[in-house]
């Protein structure tokens, strides 16, 4: 745990194992196909021989003397009765047989050609250059040699070798046995191997025909004991048993002179077993199966794919010191805190190395035992284990706590329980960007869930409908330092995706700030104090005297949480589209938010000011005052928002969508008019008078026309409905302020749902020529094709309901398909770009040292720090200078 990296691997070279090496590597020659004897003791020279390692506690490895967990396992080997081909190299063997002389073993090229090509091959370094290129060069050469029927060296006649998939070679219909194949490969001289992209320093072609098989250590293929006491062997062991059995039978048959036919059958069988031992999904042969009918998982299957060794165990690993539970919101936590349940905190530990400075304080902690509480019954950190320098762990219990506290010395490690203020990593899957894993400081809380501030829902993309999240406790000082400096939530406020804040107020925060600042309402002193009670601010804003009483304006209250030197001017979302005068402003300047020296003069705070993605105030504070201040602003803003909205109250209900009788009838009228218009269109179409738009068929043009018609009606009905729903309506407040939903959704509830669509067009599938049997075949009118005239509030009739659910289902399918497709795209992107880095000169390089960009992003600016993509925000800098001068 201490120390750092003692060794570093700088390179790995791959090679083929020669039969000699296999034997040298081996600790035991396995000759018996059995595993355990009747007492459950491993049979000597069997597949579970103790020389290959131990898996049962109590036994000792016969090679290294280690016990379980100490012995790394050792290889054994099987001598094959007859050689067999290695499936993975069948293609290579074929090329060898094709392009070399069967008699003298030379490549079938003239000496001139050989010299010519050799020069080319010697130019490149085999070990480090691109294997694709080497492969292509080799293919060119061998393709030239293959068709020659006379050997240019010895002049002998050549025959064409055919590969009978998967593992049989035939020459003019006669089988070439693996033994013969091996003999031919042996004849190929070392200097010709280069043409086959084979490095003679690490590989010989005949090693691709196996005469001896390496047996993996027992640790690689442990047998498991079932509850019934029955032993169940690993798939690899099963396969090895088969191989040994057949090999033995083959040897016996050969030795006692059995008929050639029987020997060949056995030989083929051995080939089959060895083939499936390597790859049980080889094309052309049925996979070897377990007794239960399940296909065996052999070597290739172990490595391949998502569940394979590489992706599942090497690129990603399971870890200790982590926890996972359901999440829930806690508005009183800071954005950089996470609430950890006591239960979890008692299990999760932080290692502390004892030194002379912390010895005494750690003794005190150990004395408390493993489940201490203070006099009020609150959580206090305890100790679970102490670890001696030799690695032995001692469990601390309440009984031995006192005694153990005295035992520790400098150099011991104490596994202390989680404590408030610890730095931990918090993560929610899918981890699509770096903000999916941020570090928080711990708050120990009662109950069973992880809790955090609502403002960090956006970067995690979390909600509380049952989402679970993971917590990781950092175990090393370096990691802790990195987590604190670069992974803290406040450091991640700016998204590298677009250079704006990704953390900001959501839903009620926005609604609340909107209500607090829109029209600048006044609140009595008592109310104000009540609101400010939620904050860590103890000054009061400037009062407004009215009727001899002190009042405080909403904007002044909001100004309290702004930094004192902040100057800004921007358009709020509410009035963003207004050119001259916005319909929601009292005074002309109201459409612009104006903040001078930390005091908000006019305007409305909404999504554009504090929301995630757009929050311009958060953005400014982060840039001018740094992450700490930005986090502080978000903390205070969310608290003020919660305080204010819980005092003011905010809710919405079905009656909020009530619109007057005549509005309802007007909507009905326009929708029935639309249906009429559509019918007319269809009529002209039926008469053949409908004009097709250029480049489209008449049918397509009609569909487009109808779609635009239904779209128009929905917009119009929305307009009618929203004319009666003003800014006093809670739903409208939410939509207009950007807290949740769009005006469209409100018009769907109050006005009309409108046309349902599948794949961008009207509904047209189902029965023959009609969507439902309620319509006449061939009816392409509005209602027959999914036009919903009702509103959600009035309720949909059965037909409309059905149509609506068709449209809804498309959305669901779409989401399901999309997640998998975009997930794969991202995996490929990450895999392709993961090695790129910026060097000291702001160049972008890959691992080989190739320069991808001479200056990152053409200006060398970090997108995280850029102003929404711009190199610098000149306007803001100028604005800030102007205001500074005023000061």
């Amino acid at each position, binding site marked *: 745990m201490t120390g750092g990296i003692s060794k570093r691997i700088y390179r790995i070279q791959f090679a083929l194992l020669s039969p000699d090496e296999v034997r040298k590597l081996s600790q035991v020659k396995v000759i018996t196909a059995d595993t355990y004897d009747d007492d459950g003791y491993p049979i000597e020279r069997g597949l579970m021989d103790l020389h290959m390692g131990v898996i049962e506690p109590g036994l000792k490895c016969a090679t290294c003397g280690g016990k379980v967990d100490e012995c790394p396992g050792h290889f054994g080997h099987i001598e094959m009765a007859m050689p067999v081909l290695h499936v993975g190299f069948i293609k290579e063997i074929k090329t060898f047989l094709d392009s070399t002389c069967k008699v003298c073993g030379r490549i079938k090229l003239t000496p001139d050609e050989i010299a010519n090509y050799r020069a080319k091959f010697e130019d490149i370094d085999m070990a480090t250059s691109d294997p694709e290129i080497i492969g292509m060069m080799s293919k060119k050469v061998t393709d030239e040699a293959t068709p020659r029927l006379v050997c240019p060296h010895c002049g002998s006649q050549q025959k064409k070798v055919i590969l009978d998939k998967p593992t049989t070679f035939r020459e003019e219909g006669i089988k070439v046995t693996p033994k013969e194949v091996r003999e031919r490969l042996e004849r190929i001289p070392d200097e010709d191997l280069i043409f086959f992209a084979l490095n003679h320093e690490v*590989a010989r072609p005949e090693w691709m025909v196996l005469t001896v098989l390496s047996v993996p250590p027992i640790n690689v293929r442990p047998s498991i004991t079932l509850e019934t006491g029955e032993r169940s062997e690993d798939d690899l062991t099963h396969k090895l048993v088969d191989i040994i059995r057949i090999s033995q039978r083959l040897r016996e048959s050969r030795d006692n002179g059995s008929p050639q036919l029987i020997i060949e059958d056995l030989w083929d069988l051995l080939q089959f077993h060895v083939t499936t031992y390597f790859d049980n999904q080889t094309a052309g042969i049925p996979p070897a199966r377990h007794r239960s009918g399940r296909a065996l998982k052999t070597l290739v299957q172990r490595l391949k794919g998502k569940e394979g060794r590489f992706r599942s165990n090497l*690129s990603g690993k399971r870890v200790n010191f982590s926890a996972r539970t359901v999440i829930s919101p806690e508005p009183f936590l800071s954005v950089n805190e996470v609430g950890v349940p006591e239960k979890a905190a008692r299990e999760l530990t932080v290692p502390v190395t004892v030194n002379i400075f912390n010895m005494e304080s750690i003794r005190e902690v150990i004395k408390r035992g493993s489940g201490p509480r203070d006099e009020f019954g609150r959580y206090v950190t305890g100790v679970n284990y102490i670890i001696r320098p030799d690695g032995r762990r001692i469990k601390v219990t309440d009984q031995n706590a006192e005694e153990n506290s005295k035992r520790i010395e400098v150099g011991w490690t104490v596994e202390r329980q989680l404590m408030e203020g610890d730095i931990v990593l918090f993560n929610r899957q899918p981890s699509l960007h770096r903000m999916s894993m941020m570090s928080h400081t711990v708050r120990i809380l009662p109950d069973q869930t992880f809790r955090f501030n609502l403002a960090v829902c956006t970067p995690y993309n979390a909600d509380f409908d049952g989402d679970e999240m993971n917590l990781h406790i950092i175990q090393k000082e370096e990691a802790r330092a990195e987590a604190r400096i670069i992974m803290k939530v406040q450091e991640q406020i700016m998204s590298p995706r677009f250079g704006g804040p990704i953390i900001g107020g959501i839903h009620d925060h926005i609604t609340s700030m909107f209500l607090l600042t829109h029209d600048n309402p006044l609140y009595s002193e008592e109310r104000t104090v009540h609101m400010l009670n939620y904050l860590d601010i103890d000054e009061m804003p400037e009062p407004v005297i009215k009727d001899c009483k002190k009042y405080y304006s909403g904007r002044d209250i909001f100004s309290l949480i702004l930094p004192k030197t902040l100057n800004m001017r921007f358009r709020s979302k509410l009035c963003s589209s207004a050119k001259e005068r916005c319909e929601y402003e009292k005074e002309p300047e109201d459409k612009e938010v104006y903040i001078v020296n930390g005091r908000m003069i006019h305007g409305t705070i909404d999504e554009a000011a504090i929301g995630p993605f757009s929050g311009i105030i958060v953005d400014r504070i982060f840039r001018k005052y740094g992450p700490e201040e930005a986090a502080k602003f978000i903390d205070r803003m969310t608290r003020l928002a919660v305080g204010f909205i819980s005092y003011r109250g905010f809710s919405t209900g079905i009656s909020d969508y009530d619109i007057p009788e005549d509005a309802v009838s007007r909507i009905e009228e326009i929708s029935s008019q639309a249906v009429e218009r559509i019918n007319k269109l269809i009529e002209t179409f039926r008469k053949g008078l409908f004009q097709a738009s250029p480049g489209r068929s008449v049918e397509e043009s009609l569909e487009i026309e109808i779609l635009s018609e239904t779209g128009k009606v929905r917009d119009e009905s929305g307009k009618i409905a929203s004319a009666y729903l003003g800014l006093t309506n809670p739903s409208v407040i939410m939509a207009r302020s950007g807290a949740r939903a769009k005006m469209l959704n409100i018009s769907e509830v109050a006005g009309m749902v409108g046309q349902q669509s599948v794949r961008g067009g009207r509904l047209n599938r189902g029965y023959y020529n009609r969507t439902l049997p309620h319509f006449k075949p061939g009816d392409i009118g509005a209602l027959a094709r999914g036009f919903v005239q009702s509103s959600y509030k009035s309720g949909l009739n059965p037909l409309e309901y059905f149509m609506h659910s068709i449209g809804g289902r498309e959305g669901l399918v779409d989401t399901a398909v999309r997640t998998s*497709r975009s997930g794969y795209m991202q995996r490929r992107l990450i895999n392709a770009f993961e090695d790129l880095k910026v*060097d000291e000169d702001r160049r*972008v390089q890959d691992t080989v040292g190739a320069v991808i960009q001479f200056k*990152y992003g053409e200006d060398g600016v970090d997108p995280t720090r850029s102003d929404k*993509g711009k190199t610098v925000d000149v306007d803001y800098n100028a604005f800030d200078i102007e205001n500074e001068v005023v000061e």
Partner: protein
Amino acid sequence: MKVLVWKDTKKNMESLVKNLPRKYAVDFSPRDQSIKEAYISVDGKTFTFRAVIDSIAPYDETEQNVLKKKSSPKTVFEITTLEKIDPIPLIEFKASGKYLKEMKTWNIAERSLTEMKEKEAYADTVPKDINEIVEDAKKLGFSLPLTVAYDVLKYKKSLDKKEYTHLLKRLHEDIVKKEIDPHEAVGIIAAQSIGEPGTQMTMRTFHFAGVREMNVTLGLPRLIEIVDARRIPSTPSMTIYLKKEYSKSDETVMSVVKELENTSLIDVADVITNVAEMYLTIRPNANRMKERIVAFNDILDATEKVKGITVIRDEKDQEIVVKPQQESFKKLYQVQEQLKILTIKGIPGIKRAIARIEPSTKEWVIYTQGSNLKDVLELDEVDGNRTYTNDIIEIATVLGIEAGRNAIFMESQRTLQEQGLEVDQRHLMLMADMMTFGGGVRAVGRQGISGRKSSVLARAAFEITTKHLLRAGLIGEVDPLSGVAENIIVGQPITLGTGAVNLVYKGLKNTK
């Protein structure tokens, strides 16, 4: 300038070169007697000889010492000089308004000399006042990017001298503060920034782009298509702008549209098969021909392209009878199929073209379904500087890899923007650069960038695990362990970010 071009045998040319000046008899008579220059091709593909014609005279049988090109000479050229030149491709010559595609016998052609104008240096195109700002910054001891200088312009006027200098200094400080940290894992950040919004994109393939008659793939499928570097996009389309002088004239636009749209024989005529007599009849439809502006002769010309047939023109009925030279049903069928898809006019690959007036500029713009950048750019009326296609590979092959890089950047940016997703352009640039820095467009994935990694382990961890491992053993490949994936696999710190730097502590020895 008009020149003569013809094809000749190598032998003729050799003898010409030897005895100059020489009279040379050919089997045609050019109407234009003023032609002074000729280009001669030997292989029918490139011109390798340039001749200067001194005089053109009708052939006189009595004349001696004449080299004959063919048996029935008509005209005699007196050639004074003949020089061997670097091969000029056929495409540089134009005969009757069309580029030469093949050289049969002779032609009067115009050599459309591509004028090579030296491009103004970039600094010269920058306005003076912008340059001043850059200079001002230089006086203060730092450089300011041009884009920033453009933004500063309006403040140069409104602020006083002191404030202006203050602003420049502040901007410089700001830029320095914003520089990316060395060893930052920009690739991963780019990949995440492009991939993450993918989850928010629509799957709805089609959308109207510009014109509602035209469908274009957008959203996630399009982004995947760009990243995959597909040979042919699922909906190739072009936006063709015309040169300023044509772009407001309705007639030119319509004629260009007609010229663009690929018209096959089957679009204007019916092909009737007479099995008993073993011939085919092409019966043009007058209405359809009019609509597509196709003349009867156009069809006749087109049929010449089909080999192995005899064409008989039936003037009276305005029909064409086609007989395969080889009498077999198989051949008959083949010819019929060939005729049906025979291009009469238009540009191959362009299925449909629609012209629209751009509301902002009141200028005609042609949108097409299908794309063929190379051929479209050859049209005289087309403004090659603004014409665009969404086929990235095509841009890369026609205009070069830098254009391809920009196409990847623009297409991906457009796709994301259309969905309302903000992604910093730096990420898209990095993606475009990564896909093209090898000189060709490479896909993101196992056939492209990922399959070419230098590390065996990284390749094995991505896809097709066993293939890479087995091959590595054969060639004795060395994994340098320099990337991210392989270091994770062996359990070492990665070489990016904080893992890229080492702390060296020299101990107390050096400090006495």
